[in-house]
């Protein structure tokens, strides 16, 4: 027991003291946010703005409404074309237009046209026509309103709609939007931690094997102790990182609460965090996250340790052997999306109880409310199964590990590893 603690201490300290851990802990949230906003920004920037000419043979469309609409959304522009249509159709690209729409002469305000073509000289993506389509329809709508004699007050009345939202009677504070966001964040964070730290365990084991330190160490401790020490040590590193993030969020929240509504952005963030605190049971979410983080980590990392013990220097071997394990994690994240959109469905319930997917799926469901969305029995069963699950994988992995760690040469197949695990 004493020796396991020594091993845990070494694994923990060597990792936490590394510069990469400190940088990673600070940089990860920054990069994570940058990734989300960055992709939106890039998508925004790279959206191709189109300039389309309209050749109106029906005589219904008028220039004034068109320029009003173009002012509201200056990205995509429609211009009414007047002049020699035949010449324009040949040379519109050299005049700076991406394409033209020809409104047929039989286009009436009542029936319009089922479909129209944007004639271009290039190919465009599937969504590129949407903003133009919206503008054309808006133009047609204004023609329809004018013909029907609907003024702007009547129009406002007509365009009013009603919004529907869920209201959970058992949990008055429930807010499905906040819960969805927190569910996604929890699920993805779990996914990233499992994969990143799981592969750290795998590489750590392989390093010990290929540098032959394992042989020195297992002459003083049992292979099982070495494996458990490594897994627990790295698990503690993952936990430390998570707790630092939680502490940072609390700190930022409290500071910004004290300094008050100084900036629009900050107060918006505080508002969002405040809403999260009132509508979601944050201590329960954090507590469960720690449980599922450790449980899921033990479940997967012991399997990763077994693979790490089986491979040699070649990292390609690691990829091919760890593929089935990584697939399980990816499959869990695929199950998370339907689970979040309907957290009470049977897919959501069962995948949050079965050990391999439960850390990710259950963490995505918990923000929706315990015991309203997730009854206590489901949470209890899921936790018990996860504990049983990681006890089994650890037992299984330890049997592969003790053989693999001292076996050099050819990479074993899964079949051979099964033999190591199940022989007496």
């Amino acid at each position, binding site marked *: 027991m004493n020796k396991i603690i020594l091993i845990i201490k070494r694994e923990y300290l060597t990792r936490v003291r590394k510069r990469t851990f400190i940088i990673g802990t600070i940089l990860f949230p920054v990069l994570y946010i940058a990734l989300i906003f960055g992709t939106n920004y890039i998508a925004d920037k790279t959206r191709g703005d189109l300039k389309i000419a309209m050749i109106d043979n029906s005589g219904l469309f008028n220039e004034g409404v068109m320029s009003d609409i173009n002012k509201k959304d200056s990205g995509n522009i429609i211009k009414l074309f007047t002049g020699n249509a035949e010449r324009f159709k040949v040379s519109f690209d050299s005049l700076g237009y991406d394409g033209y729409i020809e409104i047929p002469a039989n286009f009436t305000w009542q029936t319009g046209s089922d479909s129209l073509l944007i004639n271009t000289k290039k190919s465009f993506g599937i969504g590129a026509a949407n903003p133009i389509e919206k503008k054309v329809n808006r133009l047609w709508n204004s023609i329809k309103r004018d013909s029907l004699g609907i003024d702007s007050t009547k129009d406002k009345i007509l365009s009013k709609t009603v919004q529907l939202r869920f209201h959970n009677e058992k949990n008055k504070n429930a807010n499905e939007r906040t819960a969805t966001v927190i569910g996604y964040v929890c699920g993805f964070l779990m996914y990233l931690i499992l994969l990143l730290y799981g592969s750290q365990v795998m590489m750590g084991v392989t390093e010990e094997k290929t540098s032959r*330190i394992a*042989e020195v160490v297992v002459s003083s*401790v049992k292979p099982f102790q070495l494996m458990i020490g490594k897994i627990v040590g790295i698990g503690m590193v993952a936990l430390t990182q998570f707790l630092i993030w939680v502490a940072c969020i609390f700190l930022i929240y409290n500071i910004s609460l004290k300094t008050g509504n100084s900036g629009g952005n900050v107060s918006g963030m505080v508002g969002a965090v405040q809403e999260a605190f009132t509508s979601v049971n944050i201590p329960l979410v954090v507590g469960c996250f720690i449980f599922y983080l450790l449980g899921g980590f033990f479940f997967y990392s012991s399997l990763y340790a077994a693979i790490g013990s089986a491979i040699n220097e070649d990292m390609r071997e690691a990829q091919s052997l760890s593929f089935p394990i990584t697939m399980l994690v990816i499959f869990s994240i695929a199950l998370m999306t339907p689970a979040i959109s309907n957290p009470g469905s049977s897919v959501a319930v069962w995948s949050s109880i079965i050990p391999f997917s439960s850390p990710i799926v259950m963490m995505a469901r918990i923000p929706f409310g315990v015991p309203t969305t997730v009854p206590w029995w489901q949470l209890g069963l899921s936790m018990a199964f996860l504990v049983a699950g990681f006890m089994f994988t650890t037992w299984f992995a330890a049997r592969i590990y003790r053989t693999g760690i001292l076996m050099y040469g050819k990479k074993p197949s899964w079949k051979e590893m099964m033999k190591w695990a199940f022989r007496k």
Partner: protein
Amino acid sequence: MNILEVQNLKKYFATQKAVDDISLQIKQGSIFGLLGPNGAGKTTLIRMITGIFYPDSGNILLKGKNFDPENDAKYIGYMPEERGLYKKMKIGEQALYLAQLKGLSRSDAMHKIKEWFKRLEMDSWWNKKVEDLSKGMGQKLQFVITVLHEPDLIILDEPFSGLDPVNANLIKDEIYRLAQNGTTIIFSTHRMEQVEEICKHIILVNKGKKILDGTVDEVKNNFKENLFGIQLETMPENMDAPSFELINTHHKELIVRIKEGYKANDVLSYFINRGSSVVSFKEILPSLNEIFIKLVEGTPSARQFEKITA
């Protein structure tokens, strides 16, 4: 007193009888040579003695008691053939960690590391990393780590490979010093000249079986071919004696084999009677190298894979 006794030890792998019924005894304070060609089963045997593998059958007695890997680790120091250390860990911390794994307290370990580092002039290494060391320096460090916790039994697998003569002598002297203080040393190698120099007692293992067991002198005597070297002042013309046959002439030295039923004195008196004055006369014993090759030769150099039904 025997510090280690191995009784009918067996370890079969899926395709090989790695260790097939080996027994041996090692006296406390002796330097014991474990010899054998590559793949003979030496490493497997050592791994069972160090508690890394469980034997399929047979007993290991350490200090007269059944060997218990978990609690007896502190009595054993093992230096594997392929050196292993954490490359990125600082040397001082690493030595401290490995010594504590052997069961030493932190302060004890610290004290002993300082002592050893001082003796082997490694003081300045403390904050360096293993990847900064040369191969020979790494070897020295590995040796220190192996013996740091003052084990009763030290197992060294090819301890001199990669060491220059100066450092090899340094380690050799430490080995002698340890043996004098009562530490038992098992020395596994296939470098015979080192064995002849260092070891008292040897066993030879081949294909998982023990094929030779005895002191170096005994073994040499058992394999001697009654060869003698005689140096004479003047070479006699024709030699035709019933007591010996001439094997070889080298300068003024004759190599002769004494025939069955005769003694060395018969050869000497033959030359004395013929009036040749003898400068020197000595028995030529086979080297361990020759014995090794003689015994191992003829068996396939690489072990064949076979189907084992145990």
